[in-house]
Structures are given as structure tokens and as C-alpha cells.
């Protein structure tokens, strides 16, 4: 059931804020346990199979801008309502910070368009400090999370292969798709360099896992969200089944402002702005779960100020917002002459890479950095869209023409037209995505002056990379260059040097921001306990990336899902024991 309310007299057992990875999982698990749930989502309803919203299988020319990213950051067909900037919902930066914050305002949050790279953290990833002395250990270890990863694998589905690598735990994997042509090149030359080039691990159903969802039919468009639910989105895989229970009420366009508390300091519900009439309402609940994304939840807690909690709810440590960290990222591409003039065939495959390189070194300290990174690949004969055919002057002077003679870069006419055909599918790129070291001094806080259009104080970011991240980016660049050159590639663009931080992206750009409500056993040095529960307020939980002590050289979402499930089961037990 779902509706938008004006006034709500009933008291819910649980109020969940946000319907992305964490909120969706909490809604699924706790609705099955029978609790009366209010699920609050700042954006509209979304179902990829709704013809009004569907973008899957649209052609570039069905968009007047041919799929360009003018209104949606990753292109017209990408399924994120939101982006780096949202009208009426600003955020600010201080001290020359360049942090960028990506938000999706819709049912399912950022899981409608995410890359579906679904990696478990390994044993080392929870205990990095023991190994390299930097940052902090998680209070929990791989063995605590493993059973939940197993359950997530089976519930949601992920393809991959059991490789037995030390810090890249295997899971319950569906069979992977065969590699594409450029990926076979990367495998051949990558392995010659000693890199492990293995099947990617993506939450895409190469095979069915139940009778609700269809198997992937290989359109390469998971970022558009799949109409047959062949990929994982929280909206279709978690929230949709939860809404089939009578005990879940979904509030859409409901922008939560703060958590309400009583005189004893216990949470009693949340207040929110209904975006449809711009009025403020309250929902009463015995337990509040925040899953508004790491920075979104930190913002709600910081805004939940009262006499008892002048610095925000759950903030006796003063650490809410601190230890904010994103993955590192750098990229490079090359023209591969032997991939020119390719024979055409349907190379779409799944909506993502079929192979990747997990982090391969035990110890990188001799290279001047501490933590690792994995490598993602891109290339192939994808659907032409805005940008296809751009920059021919950067390509067609690099190699001999069909007649064997070098050409002047640029040009026009029939030979230019033919060049676009010749180069189609011949550019291959790679992206490093690595682990940064969380810093107490990187944080988000409330901007003392600015509010959004709902009157809610906004976040202000302060973030600086350290040399650890810069040196890691340098190593990425060297690795990319070596591999692409070994493949016979001609590197495109100049190699970014130290003056450009070796191409290291601004923090926030990799969209793995976590750490703002970190987990620990000591209430003085952490915000939540091992079960995502606020140390200060027992009936408030945080189930997004906020509780991460460190982000591994893996993408975060599989761990958000596993921890949300684990925390939800814990909450269920605690309610039964009358502890919350």
C-alpha cells in the first residue's frame, strides 16, 4: 500500500528514511518480520517498467539531444533523477575544497543507475590498521559479515567466478558472460604483466534466481534500469516486494528534516516537508532508521538539534560528518589500431564490464602509497550517442589511412565520414578505483548560513587528498600506460603529471562517499556501534555508507546491503527482547 498523507495519527513501529540500497534492504527485511513501517523517500515513485519513465531500449535519436547529459549528468537515458547539482538543494564548500556530491531523488536512490559492481570486502579490508598502521580497524571482521554477504548474493544475484584470491572473497556467483573482444586483449596483455584479469562481479542476472525477475537479455543498459528487473535496483528488488505487504506505507516526495526526540532523549519519529504542498508534517515511530546516503543521514542527524542534543543527535563524540571519504579514481584511454575497421556484430553484453582487475599487490609501500585499487575496463561497439564522432582530429592523424599513407589530422568530406566508421570500437579505456585513507579532517558539517528551498540547513564540505592518494593515482597512470601500450595502443591525451595530481579525480566524483557516522566500540571515537545503532540513542540506526570505518579498494554497495540486513535482524531481536 502507498499514499501521501496530510496528517498521520498512527504510530509506526519503524520509520525508514531513504529507499536506496540501505533503506530498501531494511524495508524488505523488517516488513517481512511484520513491523508497521513508514518508508520516507524525498523523490518520486519509480518503476523502470513504467512506460512513462522507461528509457531502456530507447534509441539515441529518440532524444532530441541524442542522449547528451544536459539535464541528467550521465546522459538522457541514465536513471538518476538528480545529479551533482539539484535545483533548490545546494551544498557548499570551504577552504578551496572541490568535493562534489551526487544525489538521486527517487524511489531506489542511486541504485537505479549504479554500475552494479558488487564486491565483498575482504578480511584485510576490515583490519587495515593492523597491517599498515594507518586509519582505524573496523570493530567487526569479515567473519561477522560473511553470512550476510552470502544471503545478499542469493537474494539479489551476482555473477562472477570463484577464484580463491586472498582478499577478494568468493560468493554465490551466477555464471559470468564471456569476455568481449577488447576485454580479451586486456586479459592477454594484462596477464603478461602479472595482473589478475578475472570475470567482473556484477549484480545482473545472467541466470534467474527466482520467478519474479527475468534473466538479462544483454542490452548493455543497466544504467537505465531494467524493465524486466534483470539487474539489481533497490526500487524493484527490495522496495517493490516490501510494498506488497499491508504493513508498509510509502511516503514519496517526503523530504525529512530531522529526527524528533522526547524529553528522555529517545527518538519519537521524524518531521518532513511534503514537496507537493511544501508543508511540514510529522511521522511518529518507535524506531528510526536513517538510510538517506552517508552525507544525507549525517545532515539529518546534525539538523536534529535540541536542548538535550545541541550538536545534533547522536553526536556526543563530535564525529558526525567526520572521516568522510570517497574512493580514489583516475582514468586513461588509448586507440588500439588493431581494433580499427572491426567486423560488426552485437557486442552490447551486460550493462558493464565482463572482466576486471582486482587489487593485486600485497604491499604497495615501496611505490610510495599504502592502499590498493582495482581496475575497471571500458570499450566496445556501443550505441552511438551524443559525442560519437567528436574529436576526430585527435584520432585520424595518429595512424595510416586505408591507402597506407598518414593523413593530416582533421579534415572533412567522404574520408572523414569513413574515419568515423574506421575508429568505431577502437578506443579502449580503464579506470582505477582505489582506497583512500580516512582523515578526521575531511568532513561535512552544517553550513551556518545557507538553507535549501525547504528551509533545511545544508551541508558544507571540507576535503583534502593526501600524498597517499596522489601517489596511488600516479601508479594507476603508470599501470594503464604500460598495459595499453603493450596492447599496441596509442595513448590519447597527455599523461597527467604531478601538477594535476596524476589525474586524481576530485573527492566525491567516484560517488562512494562513506564514513560520516563511523562504527566502533568506543562512543568517544565512533558514532554507531557494531550493529549500526547510535551509541547515544538506542532507537536510532544508520544503515547506509555512513558507518564505514574505511572504504576498501572495492565499491561499497554490497557491504551497505549486507550490513543493513545484519543490523535489521539485530534490531528485530532487540525489539523482541524489549531493548529498544
Amino acid at each position, binding site marked *: 500500500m502507498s499514499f501521501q498523507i496530510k496528517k498521520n495519527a498512527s504510530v509506526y513501529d519503524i520509520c525508514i528514511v531513504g529507499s536506496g540500497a540501505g533503506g530498501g534492504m531494511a524495508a524488505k527485511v523488517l516488513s517481512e518480520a511484520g513491523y508497521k513501517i513508514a518508508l520516507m523517500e524525498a523523490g518520486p515513485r519509480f518503476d523502470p517498467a513504467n*512506460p512513462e519513465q522507461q528509457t*531502456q531500449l530507447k534509441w539515441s535519436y*529518440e532524444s532530441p539531444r541524442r542522449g547528451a547529459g544536459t539535464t541528467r549528468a550521465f546522459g538522457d537515458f541514465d536513471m538518476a533523477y538528480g545529479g551533482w547539482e539539484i535545483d533548490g538543494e545546494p551544498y557548499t564548500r570551504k577552504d578551496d575544497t572541490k568535493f562534489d556530491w551526487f544525489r538521486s531523488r527517487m524511489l531506489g536512490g542511486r541504485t537505479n543507475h549504479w554500475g552494479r559492481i558488487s564486491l565483498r570486502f575482504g578480511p584485510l579490508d576490515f583490519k587495515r590498521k593492523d597491517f599498515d598502521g594507518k586509519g582505524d580497524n573496523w570493530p567487526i571482521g569479515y567473519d561477522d559479515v560473511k553470512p550476510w554477504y552470502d544471503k545478499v548474493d542469493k537474494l539479489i544475484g551476482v555473477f562472477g567466478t570463484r577464484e580463491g584470491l586472498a582478499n577478494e572473497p568468493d560468493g554465490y556467483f551466477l555464471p559470468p558472460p564471456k569476455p568481449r573482444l577488447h576485454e580479451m586483449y586486456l586479459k592477454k596483455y594484462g596477464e603478461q604483466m602479472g595482473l589478475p584479469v578475472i570475470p567482473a562481479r556484477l549484480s545482473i542476472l545472467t541466470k*534467474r534466481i527466482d520467478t519474479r525477475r527475468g534473466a538479462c537479455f544483454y542490452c548493455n543498459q543497466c544504467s537505465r534500469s531494467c524493465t524486466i528487473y534483470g539487474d539489481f535496483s533497490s526500487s524493484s528488488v527490495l522496495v517493490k516486494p516490501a510494498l506488497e505487504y499491508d504493513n508498509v506505507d510509502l511516503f514519496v516526495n517526503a523530504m525529512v528534516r530531522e529526527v524528533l526526540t522526547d524529553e528522555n532523549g529517545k527518538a519519537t519519529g521524524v518531521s518532513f516537508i511534503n514537496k507537493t504542498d511544501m508543508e511540514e508534517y510529522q511521522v511518529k515511530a518507535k524506531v528510526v532508521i536513517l538510510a538517506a546516503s552517508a552525507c544525507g543521514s549525517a545532515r539529518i542527524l546534525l539538523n536534529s538539534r535540541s536542548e538535550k542534543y545541541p550538536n545534533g543527535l547522536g553526536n556526543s563524540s563530535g564525529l558526525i560528518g567526520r572521516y568522510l571519504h570517497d574512493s580514489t579514481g583516475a582514468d586513461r584511454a588509448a586507440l588500439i589500431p588493431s581494433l580499427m575497421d572491426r567486423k560488426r556484430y552485437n557486442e*552490447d553484453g551486460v550493462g558493464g564490464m565482463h572482466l576486471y582487475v582486482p587489487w593485486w599487490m600485497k604491499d604497495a609501500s615501496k611505490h610510495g602509497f599504502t592502499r590498493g585499487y582495482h581496475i575497471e575496463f571500458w570499450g566496445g561497439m556501443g550505441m552511438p550517442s551524443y559525442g560519437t564522432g567528436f574529436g576526430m582530429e585527435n584520432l585520424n592523424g595518429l595512424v595510416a589511412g586505408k591507402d597506407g599513407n598518414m593523413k593530416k*589530422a582533421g579534415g*572533412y*568530406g567522404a574520408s572523414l*565520414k569513413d574515419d568515423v566508421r574506421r575508429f568505431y570500437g577502437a578506443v579502449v579505456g580503464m579506470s582505477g578505483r582505489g582506497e583512500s585513507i580516512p582523515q578526521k579532517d575531511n568532513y561535512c558539517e552544517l553550513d551556518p548560513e545557507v538553507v535549501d528551498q525547504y528551509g533545511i540547513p545544508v551541508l558544507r564540505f571540507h576535503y583534502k587528498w593526501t600524498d597517499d592518494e596522489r601517489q596511488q593515482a600516479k601508479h594507476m597512470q603508470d599501470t594503464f600506460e604500460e598495459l595499453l601500450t603493450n596492447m599496441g595502443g596509442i595513448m590519447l591525451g597527455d599523461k597527467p603529471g604531478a601538477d594535476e595530481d596524476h589525474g586524481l579525480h576530485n573527492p566525491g566524483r567516484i560517488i562512494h562517499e562513506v564514513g560520516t557516522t563511523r562504527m566502533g566500540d568506543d562512543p568517544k571515537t565512533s558514532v554507531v556501534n557494531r550493529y549500526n545503532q547510535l551509541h547515544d540513542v538506542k532507537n536510532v540506526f544508520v544503515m547506509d555508507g555512513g558507518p564505514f570505518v574505511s572504504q576498501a579498494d572495492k565499491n561499497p554497495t554490497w557491504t551497505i546491503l549486507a550490513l543493513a540486513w545484519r543490523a535489521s535482524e539485530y534490531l528485530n531481536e532487540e525489539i523482541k527482547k524489549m531493548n529498544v
Partner: protein
Amino acid sequence: MDRRKSIKAMFAGTVTSGFMFSGCLTDKEAELKSSDIAEGEIVAGGGYGRTPEELARDQRLVSETFFNEHEMATIAVLADLIIPADESSGSATDAGVPEFIEFIVKDMPWHQTPMRGGLMWLDHESNRRYDLEFIKASEDQQKAILDDIAYPDEVKPQFEHGAQFFSRIRNLVATGFFTSKMGIEDLGYQGNVPNVWDGVPRDVLEKHGLEYDEKILTQSIKPEERNDVMSWDDYEV
């Protein structure tokens, strides 16, 4: 449903990967496609999944005009010089490129001044050389100007601004053409249809001196098993 049609649709999807298993793709899957929308028809989501705000923006842009007739005529001439018809496909104007460019400069206003100014530059240069507007000059005369601005690595200083403009319009024309229906077909993109990926065609792998080894072949998904529900009975982690 019409069985013959579904087999045809299935064939269209799978034959290109050099592979066809009847039964890999169900009839329902094979029928999935982007909705066909008649011209002028008003459809929810604008026919490509717009939010109400995005749709309103599109409609506003479409109702505005940026280029005047002379500018559009110049763009058309340039577009066909950049992408002419050849034995495989039509020209840029055949593919509606000038209309695409008119929309894009409204959608991306940062193109407006450089485009308008670039077209002015071109007329100025053509007037200077031939005492004729660019579109009135002969094709040889037009090409003589383009030859001075189409090769950015060896542009004479006095043509730098023209070269900047030409790189921009070459981008827009090339992308406008190769993202049109005609251009996508010309490029030979064969996807965007339900199909069953079973790897790179064998002859292509061979040509590149590559092959799927035993490990890849055994571990990868078998097309005919894709609709089976996975069982974890004998699976150990």
C-alpha cells in the same frame, strides 16, 4: 501472438552474435523494444522517459528559434561538406543534422556565441576572398576556405578562429549524423535489441589471434540455461 514474427525478432537479435539457440530468448523477451511513436503524437514522458520538469524544458526549447534562415542555410551547406552522401548512406542534411544543431545550441547555450560568431567569420572570410557569402560561393571556393581551417595542427595564425569554429561544427555534424537512425545503421551498430550474448564470433577471435580457453568456456553462462532458476545445492563458497 504471431509465431513467425517472434522468430524473426529473435533472429534479428541473436544472429549477429553468430549464434542462435531457439528457446534462449522467450517470445515475450524478443518482442521487447522501444515504443514506436508516431510523429506529432503527445506521449507521457515525451516518449523517452522524461520527468515532468524535463519534458517542460524540452517543449520550451522546441518552441524557441535560435538560428535565422541564412544561418540555417549555411549550416546545411557546411554539414553536407563535412558529411556528404556516399555509397553507404545519405548526407548530413538527409539525416536532419541542421535541425539537430538548432536544438543542441538551445539545449547547450555555450555553443551559441561560438556558432553564430563562427558562421559570421566564415561569411566574412568568403566575402574577403570572393566577394560572396559562403553559401553563394562555388563548392571549390568553399572547400578552399575549409582547407585552411579543417586541419588544426597546421593552421596559419590568421585562420585560428576559423579553425576553432570548424572543429566545433565538425563535432556537431559528425555526432548529429552518426546518432541519427541513418548514421547508426551506417556505423553498423547492431545492438539495442533483446538477444543472447554468447561471446565474440569465432572468426573474429581468430582474426585477432585470440581464443576462449577451456576455463572461460566452462565457467561462462550457457545461453540455454539462462532461464533456469539457479540452484545452490552443490555450490560451495
